[in-house]
């Protein structure tokens, strides 16, 4: 589809969200049953969509190296497993991660812009972003200024995203809305619209530091925003729910939702990601269960 001219809309006119309707619809999606080969295929796709993440103050080189090894070797005893999509680390760990995943096809994503609070000056955020990219990050996960957003300073938030996008260069930009701090679905929708018009390649629910993190209903709101944006502009935007998705079953519900709202074009790791740390092991356990017929225990899987 040829790119249309994008005019910036008045974000205060973003559609209002029917909370009850969204929750009901998200709930209905959890009632689908996915079995056997479809389940196995779905689980492998989930693995391939994971941004394996470690974002802790106590992260060390060793921890990052271990995680990167796991990203490329999810389970060597299970042939033909895909790798994860990317590893997600702090800027200071990007160089190490980059070296570790070299030649595996796995991307390195880095959080930036004073993650997780985003409470810093714009020039610091831009410097943070440039640093991550110069260290070799293929993707940048930025946070929006939630305080400014809640004050109604939409232009401020918009400009900030646009400038970070510029600082990213060729790296793809994921914009974290931190939906847990935005309180209502109306605001989530509005923040999604702002991020997409400002140049986000992905919109992402959460940092993982605030509860609630990703939920099915909030993801549904964001997916609908992506769909509407696509109809208006012809531009595809990726989605990344992050935080709190640690079970295979839940991950499959997310896939069902993406397929229903956005369609098959989005069903790959170029357009959909899971931000997760413990999800991978649960998926591996389910895959082994399908393969061997025996319920698995975490003692027999590598620590992530």
């Amino acid at each position, binding site marked *: 589809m040829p790119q249309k001219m994008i005019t910036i809309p008045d974000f205060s006119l973003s559609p209002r969200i029917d909370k009850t309707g969204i929750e009901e619809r998200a709930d209905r999606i959890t009632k689908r049953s996915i079995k056997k080969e479809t389940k196995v295929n779905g689980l492998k796709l989930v693995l391939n969509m994971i941004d394996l993440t470690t974002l802790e103050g106590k992260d060390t080189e060793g921890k990052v190296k271990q995680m990167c090894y796991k990203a490329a070797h999810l389970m060597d005893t299970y042939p033909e497993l895909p790798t994860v999509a990317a590893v997600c680390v702090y800027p200071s760990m990007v160089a190490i991660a980059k070296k570790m995943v070299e030649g595996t096809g796995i991307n390195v994503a880095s959080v930036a812009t004073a993650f997780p609070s985003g409470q810093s000056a714009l020039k610091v955020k831009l410097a943070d972003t440039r640093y991550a990219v110069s260290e070799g990050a293929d993707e940048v996960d930025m946070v929006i200024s939630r305080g400014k957003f809640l004050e109604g300073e939409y232009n401020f938030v918009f400009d900030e995203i646009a400038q970070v996008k510029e600082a990213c260069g060729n790296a793809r930009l994921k914009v974290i809305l931190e939906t847990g701090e935005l309180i209502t679905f109306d605001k989530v929708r509005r923040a999604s619209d702002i991020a997409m018009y400002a140049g986000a390649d992905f919109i992402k629910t959460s940092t993982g530091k605030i509860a609630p993190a990703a939920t099915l209903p909030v993801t549904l709101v964001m997916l609908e925003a992506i769909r509407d944006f696509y109809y208006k502009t012809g531009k595809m935007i990726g989605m990344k729910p992050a935080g709190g998705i640690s079970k295979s079953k839940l991950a499959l519900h997310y896939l069902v939702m993406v397929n229903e709202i956005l369609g098959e074009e989005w069903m790959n790791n170029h357009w959909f990601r899971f931000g997760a740390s413990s999800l991978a092991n649960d998926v591996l356990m389910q895959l082994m269960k399908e393969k061997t017929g*025996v*319920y*698995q*225990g*975490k*003692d*027999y899987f590598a620590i992530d």
Partner: protein
Amino acid sequence: MENVLVKKDKQLSSGNGVEKPLQKRLEVLKTYKLYIGGKFPRTESGRYYLAENKKGEKLANMCLGSRKDFREAVVAARNAFGDWGSRSAFNRGQILYRIAEMLEGRKAQFIDEIIKQDNTLEEAKLEVDVAIDRLIYYAGWCDKFQQIYSAVNPVASSHFNFSSPEPTGVVSLIAPQNSSLIGMVSVIAPIIAGGNTCIVLPSFSKPLCAVTFAEVLNSSDLPGGVVNIITGKVKELLPYFSDHMDVNAIAYCEKNEEDKKLIQDKASLNMKRTQFYNTKNWLSDQGQSPYFIMDFQEIKTTWHPIENIGGTKGGY
């Protein structure tokens, strides 16, 4: 007050002097459900079976538990293990004692259920009494078996070397099928006294007390998930009880050789600690021993360097 009631009854009675109630009251019967993670869910499978006694009286609709119920129970038991296994032994003893207290308070209900399930009054009374005493017995052992089965080992280097028992983890348990209460209690008590958590398959033909016992556990400060009870068929559930990789040990209290073979076969997948109990009479003193606790313990040996302990100078 009583007078008023009597008067009223008289007014309602029919003329011939025989007093009849106006209508028969419908009894509020208990729904016998599963016990998983401190909650009482119905089986996810939606299947039930009718528990009957030898006289053919219908006792209850019991949940016919499924492998998915078992899977949920293992998750609950694994989650509960961290807390229960690391509690102080003394606290576990207190809670076992509390279970005994609760059981004592509901004696009448258990006796009633055991009688319904083909026992005489004397037998029922004995069974409940022994069950209570058995819980007290293991409550006492909770913080004592460690000393008895620990050792300080002589070694030829400057180490303090000692071995002590630690809980194995999650235990699946096929309870004795010919007893309603005492068999199950006799095997659960040593397992949890040692800090393990368990999933129990109680008697299929005499299942009433198992569910009522779950209510006792639930009101005894025992954290949810330490004991999980699933009613159902041994033949159907045994493979899952035996091969689940997140279960660390299995106890089987029946004599079917085919079942034993199956357990040994499947339990070897992750080297489960496997115990077969052939004790015929759980009512006797043979049914209790600290060795039952040790059956689900692992021995951990620690080498502690002592050359320069606490920064003091050499002692020669």
